[in-house]
């Protein structure tokens, strides 16, 4: 992965930069020893590591603004970091950039039941939001698998999803307001506790912008009443195609489950070895279908869904009879990644989305790619919304296997786009999928996105080298070439 050439002049000024930063924030908020900075040299995409120029951990929004303003004036790059759980390298440091950590912003500022929202600092973990309101029956819906550790500021930057987004949406659908600090050190608020943006939806554009447009310094999140009950079905199929059909049939029947997950044979067995959830080992595909809501409704819908999956050719069906059993159904799915980690020294986790009806095609394509590359692949899907998580198994100690696994992964993502899907459903582009962006987007598509970047950060100082494969100077992007008087369609009406 080629990152932008570090600016040696900035690196040479490192001591002086750290001295100045210590005058902007309390001295102990600047970390510059190699040993201490090691803890920050990677995020969840741990194949890539880089020590930053320095780590700054501000304590107040005013300090964030002051650091950014000074960096802007002195043309020093900034890489924002929440909890560092990104799976795509969004918080990968740069040698000539200050790593701005939001870890100290860990307070919930307000719980407002009248408006059914929580105002929090960006470093609060996703799960802590639910913990703060669950005694009163509320919860925060987006539930990325890293929710125990990932921060809500990072959730905004990555537009994080989870297993329940089919029914409850991603971060962008559960966010009411944000405060951001721009690269120039300006503090701006988008949204609030009201529902709609009255002007351009800048909160919408900030969500999922991967730290390239601004630093999130406060969030206002919508919280919901926890559904009265939840029950799940565990359904085995001897054919992944039939499982895919069943997923479509459930939705065609007008039912939107809270979650609809699929695992393939390899994933089923790895999970079963690990947690003993009672999964059908002989099944080629397993569906976990969860319904939540009022008890009467859930009971009625469970029955309908059971009928649908049996008709679609299910070879085994179990319905959870207790909360304990429901959790057991999920235990295997939730431990699928570590379970696969036990059967292979290393694995790459991919994250594409396809139109759901292409699932059988995709399974066939993956099987043939698996043969071609000589690497095994285990599959877990958010089947309801077509989001795939193929896990490519490899051994980094075998020369060339990492590269082969990466090529395999790139081919899977290429296939996703070919089948009408996209490169990433929830993990983000970051550095991981940066160079694949041209598969999904034309040069003009990408230039238009970068022009938006220029409206926020014309100097490309904020998180450069992420998301976009080619960096264009803003002046060049802004140029507009008009062919004067050239009118190739003379039949069109003219003024």
């Amino acid at each position, binding site marked *: 992965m080629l990152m932008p050439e570090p600016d040696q002049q900035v690196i040479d000024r490192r001591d002086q930069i750290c001295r100045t930063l210590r005058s902007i924030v309390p001295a102990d908020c600047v970390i510059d020893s190699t040993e201490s900075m090691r803890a920050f040299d990677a995020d969840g995409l741990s194949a890539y590591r880089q020590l930053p120029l320095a780590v700054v951990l501000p304590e107040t929004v005013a300090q964030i603004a002051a650091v950014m303003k000074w960096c802007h004036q002195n043309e020093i790059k900034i890489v924002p970091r929440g909890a560092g759980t990104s799976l795509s390298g969004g918080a990968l440091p740069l040698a000539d950039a200050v790593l701005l950590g939001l870890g100290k912003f860990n307070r919930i500022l307000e719980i407002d*039941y009248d408006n059914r929202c929580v105002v929090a600092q960006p470093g609060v973990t996703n799960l802590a939001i639910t913990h703060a309101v669950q005694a009163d*029956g*509320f919860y925060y819906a987006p539930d990325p698998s890293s929710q125990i550790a990932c921060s809500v500021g990072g959730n905004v930057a990555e537009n994080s999803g989870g297993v329940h*987004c089919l029914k409850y*949406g991603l971060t*962008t*659908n559960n966010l009411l307001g944000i405060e951001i600090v*721009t690269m120039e050190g300006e503090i701006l608020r988008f949204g*609030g*506790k*009201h*529902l*709609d*943006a*009255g*002007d*351009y*939806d800048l909160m919408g*554009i900030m969500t*999922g*912008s991967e730290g390239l447009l601004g630093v999130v310094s406060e969030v206002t999140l919508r919280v919901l*009443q926890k559904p009265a009950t939840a029950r799940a079905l565990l359904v085995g199929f001897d054919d992944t195609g039939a499982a895919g059909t069943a997923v479509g049939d459930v939705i*065609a029947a*007008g039912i939107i489950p809270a979650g609809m997950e699929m695992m393939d044979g390899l994933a089923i067995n790895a999970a079963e070895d690990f947690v003993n959830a009672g999964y059908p080992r002989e099944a080629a595909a397993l569906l976990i279908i969860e319904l939540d*809501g*009022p008890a009467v*409704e859930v009971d*009625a*819908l469970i029955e309908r869904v059971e009928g649908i999956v049996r008709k679609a050719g299910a070879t085994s069906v179990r319905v959870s009879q207790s909360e304990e059993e429901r959790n057991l159904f999920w235990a295997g799915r939730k431990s699928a990644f570590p379970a696969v980690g036990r059967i292979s020294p290393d694995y790459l986790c991919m994250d594409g*989305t*396809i*139109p759901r*009806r292409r699932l059988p095609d995709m399974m066939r394509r993956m099987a043939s790619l698996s043969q071609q590359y000589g690497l095994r692949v285990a599959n877990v899907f958010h089947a309801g*919304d*077509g989001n795939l998580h193929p896990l490519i198994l490899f051994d980094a100690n075998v020369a060339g296997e990492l590269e082969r696994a990466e090529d395999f992964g790139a081919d899977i993502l290429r296939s996703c786009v070919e089948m*009408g899907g*996209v*490169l*990433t459903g*929830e993990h983000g*582009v970051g550095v991981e*999928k940066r160079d694949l*962006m041209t598969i*999904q*987007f*034309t040069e*003009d598509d*990408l230039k*238009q*996105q970068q022009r*938006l970047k220029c*409206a*926020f950060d014309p100097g490309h100082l904020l998180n450069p080298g992420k*998301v976009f494969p080619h960096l264009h100077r803003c002046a060049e992007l802004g140029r*507009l070439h*008009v*062919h004067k008087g*050239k009118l190739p369609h003379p039949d069109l*009406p003219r*003024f």
Partner: protein
Amino acid sequence: MADLIATTLAEVKEAVDTTLAANRTLEVRSAGTKRHLGRRLSADSVLDVSGLSGIIDYQPEELVMTLRAGTSMGDVEAALADARQMLAFEPPSMTRVTGEASRGVRGTIGGVVAANLSGPRRLTAGAARDYMLGFEAVSGRGELFKSGGQVMKNVTGYDLSKLICGSYGTLAVMDQITLKTLPAPETSQSLLVACPDFAAAVRVIAEIFATPHEPGAAAILPQVIAGEEGVDTGGAFTAIIRLEGIAASVSDRITNLQAMAGGDILPMEKSVTLWQQIRDVQPLAKKPLDLWKVSCAPGDAPKIVDALDPNMDVRMIADWAGGLLWFAASRSDALGRRLRETVASLESGFAMLVLDVAATREKIPPFQPLKGPMFALHRRVKSAFDPRGVLNVGRMHDGI
């Protein structure tokens, strides 16, 4: 000046290129039913995009519809009804308020998206912007670009779909758009609760939303209007709470809520009609009046209502549990100024002039004015898509 007509994306590009070359400006128009929104335009030409029309691909079991922006809402609703699905954000139609409906005029999906219009279910299901999965458009630079995709879960690149929703045609001319659809609820019913005052109505709704009985929409009508709509409960205000879902679930939940909050149950047929009236702001359209909407934190709604001048002749209704307030008055610049002052003091929300009958928008800007750095950022965003100000320039704010 002659209109430009585009029926393909290439023709849109051609029209924008030509306009750029001639240093002129365009008003992008399809059915033209949203021209009452925003500032009056004085563009050199109209670009008629009503021909960019038709549903391209609709796969109900994928919950995805791809269609062209000029597709009439009538056609969209018919296709959805065939598959027993819906646009969950419940797009309102303002043509009944403007009187265009009586001439058979319907708006287009492009207009709904461009103005990010959502109805009562917005409170729990999200806005138009939450259902916009992707689009193709021509920017004010005359460049064809796309964003998003045709799948539900996608974080590849900036989410320009959010930005294009509610941009009133000031950034790009949309052609193909992809929306997420959802199954329509099998049944619905409403609970009508009599309340002694407006604040009590907001409070009872908040209490109902703190239960697991899944209310889906909540509106408040003053007694006079409740009477006109045939749902007078005897209270000075009536809180109306809608529940949707399968029959067994709806009747179970509404019984529970009734036990808690009292009130009367409105059966499905009457409930559907009432919510259509509320969605389309019909109760305020009995005679031609200026129309304002305020988007606010639901809990702040009583403060906004209390701050109104009691001598002013204003009709109002509330939706979104109090988070959307509609006000109608004959000469509304004073009303608008008062709403703006109150909203500004609350630091969350905005007041927008939606319809004027007496050239009110020449006296007071229809969009809540943007300040300092926010205005500058909006200008830069506009510039990123439309540097010369070719498309609907000035529709939202000066130069935007």
